[in-house]
């Protein structure tokens, strides 16, 4: 019969392992900071594959012909810029390089600043002219009414562009006025707006739609992709990196992939360590309880 453990004293090894579940959170913060910063400073150049969703998104833009029109909706604010800016920029670069004309807007009050910066950068790189090759309609309150109303008339929904120019005076908007005139709608969003575009612009008007989403949101729009209501989508920074690879122009998405890989791995390590600590703690607590009961007996 094995000798009973001393009352209240857990096994030494289990006690050591239990300490893994009590790491000070400042160490965690420090390691997370390092796991993001170091790969950005010294890239690992991990290979980046492309998902079928990203390939479908790319194919939708690729099939557009010079002179075709695209609606591009910047449906996010600065909080998710780091994740979504790369896919917005890559998409606009791709569209402008193919001679596609872009009608941009935003459904967020904080969106115009982002839209102006990215549109300006992509347009100047490809020498696109405002009014003829692209327009920015700005922010319109109430996204549901905006999405539905644009199916009837874009000029009525946005009587002026972001700068106050009457829409009817913009050469691009003289030629197109509703979804029926638009080949593709792109929404880049951190919220459920991709779903609303699908319901109101896609369901009611048959508009072809692709979406760029944050990684969290991407999981929620899989059903729309499977049914074909979304023709393609990009999920998170990884989606942006895949798209950058597909258009052959690396940007912030590809640069961020190493950091994201290491950070994800670190979080998984923390989860594993936390669980080892948890089980060791449980084991030692059980052993201590058994020993105490044996002592009482």
């Amino acid at each position: 019969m094995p000798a009973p453990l001393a009352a209240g004293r857990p096994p030494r090894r289990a006690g050591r392992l239990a300490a893994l579940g009590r790491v000070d959170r400042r160490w965690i913060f420090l390691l997370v900071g390092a796991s993001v910063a170091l790969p950005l400073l010294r890239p690992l150049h991990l290979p980046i594959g492309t998902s079928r969703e990203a390939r479908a998104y790319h194919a939708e833009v690729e099939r557009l012909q010079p002179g075709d029109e695209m609606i591009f909706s910047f449906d996010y604010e600065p909080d998710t810029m780091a994740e979504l800016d790369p896919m917005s920029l890559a998409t606009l670069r791709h569209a402008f390089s193919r001679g596609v004309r872009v009608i941009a807007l935003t459904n967020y009050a904080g969106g115009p600043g982002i839209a102006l910066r990215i549109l300006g950068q992509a347009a100047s790189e490809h020498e696109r002219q405002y009014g003829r090759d692209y327009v920015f309609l700005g922010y319109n309150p109430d996204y549901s009414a905006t999405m539905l109303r644009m199916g009837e008339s874009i000029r009525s929904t946005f009587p002026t562009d972001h700068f106050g120019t009457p829409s009817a005076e913009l050469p691009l908007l003289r030629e197109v006025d509703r979804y029926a005139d638009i080949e593709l709608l792109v929404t880049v969003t951190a919220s459920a707006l991709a779903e609303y575009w699908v319901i109101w612009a896609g369901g009611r008007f048959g508009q072809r739609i692709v979406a760029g989403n944050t990684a969290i949101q991407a999981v929620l729009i899989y059903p729309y992709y499977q049914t074909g209501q979304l023709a393609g989508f990009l999920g998170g920074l990884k989606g942006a990196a895949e798209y950058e690879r597909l258009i052959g122009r690396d940007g912030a998405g590809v640069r961020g992939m190493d950091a994201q890989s290491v950070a994800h791995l670190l979080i998984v390590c923390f989860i594993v360590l936390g669980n080892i600590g948890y089980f060791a703690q449980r084991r030692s607590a059980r052993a201590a309880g058994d020993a105490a009961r044996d002592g009482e007996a």
Partner: protein
Amino acid sequence: MKRTGPVLLGFVIGMLMLVQHFTPDRWIAERYNNILDWKQVVFGLTLILGVVSLFLYHWRRIARREEGWRYSLLTVGGLAFMIGAAILFTPSRGPYPWMFEHVQAPMQSTLFALLAFYVASASYRAFRARNLHAALLLSAGVIVMLGRVPLGEAIGLNHISTWILDYPNLAAKRGVMIGVGLGMTATAIKIILGIERTYLGRGA
């Protein structure tokens, strides 16, 4: 009348929005567009209401010198500055876009980036395989997290991750969506028929 009027209005507007889906009638299409325009106007007014409410709330805190009133002062100051800058210089030029680019955008991005630290800390503390369900959830989370980055792709986890997203995730999400859709339809019918009146306020 105080109760009947809004219920009747809800019925007429609700029926109009329902019927317009099924008819190409021009008159109904025009009324539908009118309603959409009004919806935008009402939404715009709620934004103004929000700004006024925010201002009054913080103004009261400043006037009473409540704890943290200096933060309220900063909020009111920021609000007044941005409104003033937009009116005086337009939102496209001058201090308004500058403040957006150099103050609002970095602050919002920073706050969001802090999530990475808290997610890491929270997953370390709370993500425990306490029972079979928790263990399954944990395994799925780990596989999807690794499968969505190049490191996971290198060891083939992306295929398992895609399977999880395509089948278990899709089934659950679709079930939730159908449930929500049925709930929304039922609530809409109840509002149109005047059965659901909580939107009229207490005592309706």
